[in-house]
């Protein structure tokens, strides 16, 4: 019984075969192509059928409407927008409004979530009960009610603009929102920004240098006094030389409302508040699970090395917990972003409200608009996932896992 060594197939062909067909070989490749062709055909049929039927029913189709004038106004725009701008610009305005409320919501949800998790883990009986009550109450109430609660509760508690609460005469709170002085760029603006940027870059370089010194040569360098000097001292010195970078425009009551200054609308506050407190309840549980997943021997090992409790947590426990925390945390970030579409209930002009809502009913082009909206939500979610994956990968790598 003799076996002859088989001649290995050419490398490139083998690679393609593996890539496409897996273990099934060339048969598998054929199946994959057939499957792709069927999928493509179904997609083509749906699109062409939809087009034909829309045409038969004389429903306008295509994306030409994006160049038409929108003809309605939006009360929070991060870029300049008027009623005579196009639907495409409405799309961007709505998207930015969705992004800003999501980002603010994510930041606060994470902060509150971590704090609540630490409360629940605290040996202090009162703190841990407070954390528990927070989590169990907030996560068991429907989000829509929480949004409406914050909106109506906040609105009801606030006075009208003529009786607004004044904060030192420069900022005002009323049921029209929080009005704050808005900065207007002055002569010293450019050097100020340049110095600020320089300070940030120099601080990062310093940190990089200090870490290398620590890991490669075992030297500890205290960098925070230098960083402080770079971040605050440098720009302040610039102001002394070149003058104020900006002046503030103070809001003042005029007619029904405040003129001048910047305004944060109550819809934004209510939505960001509801989204972050709600998601924080879930994040708290995720963080708690992550920290509990680290064996308590790690803590003891840290103590036996003479590290303080805080240092042990920061350098040993939390980095290991992050491996467990990051994937479900990503889910919560995605949920928060998607939940921001509930904004329409309180009149916050997010993407769903101004584009998939108002624009849809002004143009009647449901398929195009819903497809664009779904597409952009998908893109936001995939990007968030990608960023979190990279972060998770870095955490794992730094642990040598």
């Amino acid at each position, binding site marked *: 019984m003799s076996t002859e060594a088989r001649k290995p197939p050419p490398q490139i062909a083998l690679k393609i075969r593996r890539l496409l067909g897996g273990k099934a070989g060339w048969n598998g490749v054929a199946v994959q192509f057939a499957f792709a062709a069927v999928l493509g055909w179904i997609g083509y049929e*749906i*699109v062409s*059928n*939809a087009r034909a*039927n*829309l045409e*038969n*029913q*004389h*429903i*306008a189709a295509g994306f030409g409407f994006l160049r038409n004038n929108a*003809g*309605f*106004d*939006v*009360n929070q725009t991060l870029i300049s927008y008027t*009623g005579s701008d196009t639907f495409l610009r409405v799309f961007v305005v709505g998207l930015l409004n969705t992004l800003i409320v999501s980002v603010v919501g994510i930041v606060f949800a994470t902060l509150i979530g971590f704090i609540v998790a630490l409360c629940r883990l605290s040996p202090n009986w009162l703190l841990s009960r407070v954390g528990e009550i927070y989590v169990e109450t907030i996560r068991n109430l429907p989000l829509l009610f929480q949004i409406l609660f914050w909106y*109506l509760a906040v*609105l*009801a508690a606030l006075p*009208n603009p003529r009786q607004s609460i004044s904060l030192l005469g420069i900022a005002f709170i009323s*049921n*029209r929102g929080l009005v704050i002085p808005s900065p207007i760029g002055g002569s010293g603006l450019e050097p100020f920004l340049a110095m600020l940027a320089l300070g940030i870059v120099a601080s990062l370089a310093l940190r990089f240098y200090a870490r290398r010194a620590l890991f490669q040569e075992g030297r500890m360098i205290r960098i925070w006094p230098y960083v402080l000097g770079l971040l605050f001292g440098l720009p302040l010195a610039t102001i002394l030389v070149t003058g104020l970078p900006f002046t503030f425009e103070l809001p003042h009551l*005029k*007619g*029904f*409302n405040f*003129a001048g200054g910047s305004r944060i*609308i*109550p*819809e934004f506050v209510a939505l960001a508040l509801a989204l972050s407190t709600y998601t924080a309840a879930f994040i708290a549980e995720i963080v708690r699970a992550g920290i509990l997943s680290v064996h308590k021997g790690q803590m003891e090992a840290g103590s036996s090395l003479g590290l303080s409790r805080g240092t042990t947590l920061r350098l040993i426990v939390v980095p290991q917990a992050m491996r467990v925390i990051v994937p479900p945390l990503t889910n919560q970030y995605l949920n928060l972003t998607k939940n921001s579409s509930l904004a*329409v*209930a*309180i*009149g916050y*002009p997010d993407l769903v*409200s*101004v584009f*998939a*809502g*108002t624009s*849809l*009913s*002004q*143009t*009647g*082009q*449901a*398929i195009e*608009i*819903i497809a664009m909206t779904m597409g952009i939500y998908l893109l936001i979610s995939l990007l968030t996932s990608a960023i979190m994956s990279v972060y998770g990968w870095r955490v794992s790598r730094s642990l040598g896992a």
Partner: protein
Amino acid sequence: MKRVTLALTLALAAGLSAQAADAQTLKTIKDRGMLSCGVSQGLPGFSSPDDKGNWTGLDVDVCKAIAGAIFNDASKVKYVPLSAKDRFTALQSGEIDVLSRNTTWTISRDTSLGANFTGVTYYDGQGFMVKKSLKVNSALELNSASVCVQTGTTTEQNLADYFKANNMKYEVIAFGTNDETVKAYEAGRCDVFTTDQSGLYANRLKLANPNDHMVLPEIISKEPLGPMVRHGDDQWFDIVKWTLFAMLTAEELGVTSKNVDEKAKLENPELKRVLGTDGNFGEQLGLTKDWVVRIVKAVGNYGEVFDRNVGAGSPLGINRGLNNLWNKGGLQYAPPIR
């Protein structure tokens, strides 16, 4: 969520269903045994459910009249409450047979939505409501005001036009439904609530203290409200269109829900034609000879419907004004039934 579901239904309907379903709205309705009618989510006088869940209002009576003409039974209507944003999608996707939901007739809606307006059930115009305590007497004093409006309406666009044309600044807060808009106005989020003037009077009744609020005199737009049907079924278009004309004709001829049977016995040639004892116009529509009798028995003539829902006989107490018959100084005019 409803909007997304609707849009998906539309995508599926447009993508997968065959075209054949189109021209048979009447047959579909008869097979189903119900007329599916899109109405508002609650606008007193036009379409709102009472405390027992029965729908009433001018727009609701249009649905009842059509159901009466088809089934001789005004109760065979399934009401589908729709927000302003969802209404056209619901019509396009076939979820409803007719949209009778205080909808303004405009050229863009008539041409780009794949739907047609069948007539005008109510001539309206956009107005403003403010708190009396603001001491505002004219819409031109509203510079820098915050305005609450329902999203997805012509109102929203008229508002932008009006403030721009008069060089005034304003802040718009747009809500998904009428009730949310009114609630925000009442909570003081905005100084002004704007919608069609009939809607202002109707919504004022919903406020805690209606007398603290006033409707400003300016009317800033033309808002002819009417029912809509899908493109592609001319028979159904005719039925909905002539149901309204039948109600108007009945009022013109003095035919009411009380005297319709006696009138049908008279030897007046026009009455005989209209009430179906002579000729077969109803059958040409795809209905029965006595279609007008059925409609009048179901809801009464246009004047009765107006009085009961929005006019003198209702809490709204709106004057007939433009909605009077053409021979009484109004705009309501029906082509002859002959």
